[in-house]
């Protein structure tokens, strides 16, 4: 199963990446995906608490079960206005 991952704002600097694809196991949750990413990107791990996570255009909790083709977006607190 594959999901797309997008990083926004300074998360792009932390990962050196704007967009990537990741293969995950059936039934994996956002929490499990994040754990993998945190191992790969330690600076992202430091932001765990304040990090916002969306799938598609909606915010999702960490126990959200990922589906094939999901577009996951990770970003720091928003600052519009």
């Amino acid at each position, binding site marked *: 199963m594959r999901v797309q991952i997008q990083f926004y704002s300074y998360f792009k600097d932390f990962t050196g990446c704007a967009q990537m694809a990741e293969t995950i196991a059936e039934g994996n949750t956002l929490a499990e995906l994040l754990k993998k990413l945190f191992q790969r990107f330690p600076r992202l791990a430091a932001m765990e608490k304040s990090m916002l996570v*969306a799938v598609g*255009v909606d915010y999702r909790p960490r126990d959200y079960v990922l589906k094939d083709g999901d577009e996951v977006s990770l*970003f720091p607190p*928003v*600052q*519009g206005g």
Partner: protein
Amino acid sequence: MKRQFTITSQPIDEAALLRGRKMSDAMGAVIYFLGVVRGTEALDKKISAIEYEAFQKMVEHQFNLLFDEMEKRWPIESVRLVHRIGLVLVNEPSLWVEVIAPHRGEAFASCQWLIDEMKRVVPIWKKPIPG
């Protein structure tokens, strides 16, 4: 409730937006809010501009969720909102909001609520550009 949302890399044309205002005879209050880029992000550093980045598809969806909620809470006739992305120079507005309501209480309350919520959930980020 009429709703209009624009995200743009162009300067906000306030005069044109004013000319586009439409309101029924039952409305008694109009509020405009402008968020303007300040030259001082903090006391110690001068900036010349802010670069705004947006996750546009999600911005639009999140604003629509906020507009839905606004419509439930207050008898608003119309809300229009423009947010700039890209480089916005100091002293230029990055955000323009218009709310039209029967009375001022509803107009003020809903406009403040919308901006507070925007700053909580709408995926837009700032990057200060040193002066």
